[in-house]
């Protein structure tokens, strides 16, 4: 998977036509062959752009910050990124007319060690669902009713006895340092005031205790339930390497299995599982 040339050409063309003010893409980070995001405003810099299977970070995150606000933005999105973009469009956070979206038919990205990322091996929506231009060959996978792959970690933990799970998560929450990088690096956490942010939190004012971390991460993951697109930006940002995807994937699997929903952000205009209901939803857990 290498679309470096195509993306450079597209960016150069967009700048030449005056269609965008800033182009968000990836560049090689300068000390190894991993890549970091880059915001390009000068047309001469387009030669910096690259796209390979090391282009990991979800660039939709940049649509929520100062550098792109009220500007026309060119943007590269993979399958999962496009789902988060779709949700941001649905939730009126960005204007479609201000965006030029370069969609990728993604074949999966690799982590720093060169291993294919877990969310890519499980991926159900490899092709960008929002795009002005699509690069690569669409995989043609059925995004709406394809078979859901249960996350291996979730399945493994679900089988363990309750006390073992409790002990495992105790460790997770204990190692959280409450920097809130997970919340800030999530493209869908765009709230100006967040209930887990330190200065605006209500019950826990950001003190780093195990119970505070539990509270923050649980509330955060429940706010993202039905919206999380499994791009794993949070996990990449976590300085303690916590397995944050467990919380999100758990919610996703419950939603997928019980409500017969498609994945979050696959359909434009669909706000996620918690904004609708079905009369057939399971009722057996309620007395």
């Amino acid at each position, binding site marked *: 998977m290498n679309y470096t040339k195509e993306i450079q050409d597209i960016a150069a063309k967009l700048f030449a036509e005056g269609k965008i003010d800033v182009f968000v893409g990836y560049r090689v*980070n300068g000390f190894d062959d991993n890549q*970091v995001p880059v915001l390009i405003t000068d047309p001469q810099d387009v030669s910096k752009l690259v796209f390979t299977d090391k282009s990991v970070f979800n660039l939709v995150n940049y649509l929520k910050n100062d550098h792109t606000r009220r500007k026309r933005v060119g943007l590269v999105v993979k399958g999962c990124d496009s789902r988060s973009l779709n949700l941001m469009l649905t939730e009126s956070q960005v204007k479609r007319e201000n965006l030029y979206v370069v969609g990728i038919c993604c074949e999966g990205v690799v982590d720093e060690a060169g291993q294919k990322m877990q969310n890519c091996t499980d991926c159900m929506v490899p092709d960008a669902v929002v795009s002005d231009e699509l690069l690569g060959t669409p995989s043609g996978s059925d995004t709406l009713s394809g078979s859901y792959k249960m996350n291996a970690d979730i399945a493994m933990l679900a089988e363990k006895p309750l006390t073992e799970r409790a002990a495992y998560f105790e460790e997770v929450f204990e190692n959280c340092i*409450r*920097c809130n*990088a997970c919340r800030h690096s999530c493209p869908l956490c765009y709230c100006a005031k967040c209930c887990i942010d330190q200065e605006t939190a209500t019950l826990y*004012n950001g003190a*780093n205790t195990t119970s505070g971390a539990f509270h923050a991460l649980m509330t955060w993951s429940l706010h993202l339930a039905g919206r999380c697109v499994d791009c794993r930006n949070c996990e990449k940002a976590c300085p303690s390497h916590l397995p944050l995807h467990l919380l999100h994937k758990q919610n996703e699997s419950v939603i997928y299995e019980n409500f017969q929903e498609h994945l979050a952000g696959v359909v434009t205009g669909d706000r996620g599982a918690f904004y609708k209901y079905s009369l057939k939803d399971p009722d057996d857990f309620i007395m």
Partner: protein
Amino acid sequence: MSVETFVTDKAGLQKFYEAVMASRETYAPVEKFGKFDFKRVARVTECDPESPIAKTQSIKPLFFPRSAKVMKFVATSAGTDVSETDEDPLAVKRAILGVKHCDARSLQVLDKVYNWDYIDTDYQKRRENTVIISTRCDRADTHCFCTSLDYDVENLDALDVLIVNGSDGKIYIKARTPKGESFLKETVTGQASPVTDEIASPDLKKQYDAFAGSFRLKMDYKEVNAKLSKIFDTPEFENVSGNCVSCNTCAFVCPTCHCFKISDEKVKDTGVRYKSYDSCNNGYFTLMAGGHNPRPVKYRRWRQRAMHKFVYYKERFGENLCVGCGKCTIACPVNISIFEVVNQVSAAGVQE
């Protein structure tokens, strides 16, 4: 002052670690989720004193906890009562194993701010009661640049006991301070034998030279200090901060960042006041109640961060507020390097 040096081998070093753990409370890097954090340990097998620098959190939380309880309080209609918290668990006699040189140095930098004007007695107590045992790195990591900063890495006196991997599997244990010396008297057992400086020095020097030669990043900090102090208004800050996601994690992992905030947690009538970390990259770090914010946009916050580290702190306390450990770059989701930022900004400022 006679500074004692001992030589031993791998097994002897393990014995030494065991003796340390037997003599006092010991903290060492413990692996959790692929990342090492300093935790209380009782056995050598639980920890890895030679944990890779890129995966190890700083030792700052052992002196300046991520959340310290300031006080407890009871506030009812009948009256208010304030009580100090329980005894500080970090103020006991203790030793820290596997400290990196940069981390040890960070304490020297922090000493300045904590002993300035109002003296932080808790911090001092924790400092006094701690023996820092540091293993010198054998080679530099991708993001390290400690040799480029304003301290002598080879003869660092921020650490009490220095451990160096010499040639032919020899391991040197050397006291660097009087505190370290008396500590070694208690803990070095028959496994290690004393050597004179004449024998040890060449080997130590050789190891240091190999280490110092392995750095990818090199800069002249004096030049950076001088250039940065003149270019407050450069637009380059906007460029370097472009892909920052304002996630704050750099300040939380930084061994020298010392900003904190004070917050109350109250349920019913009782509550606790905490002092916990905060980060200047946070949008509402300086937001005032009336809505005025001196640093409302990202590049201004980055300017504050870079300038505080390399200009303001230098002006005020005579040290750079950076020890070149590269922890922020490793933790950063988009790998922004403070090294690159200051160099890029100071280079751009000069061109204009």
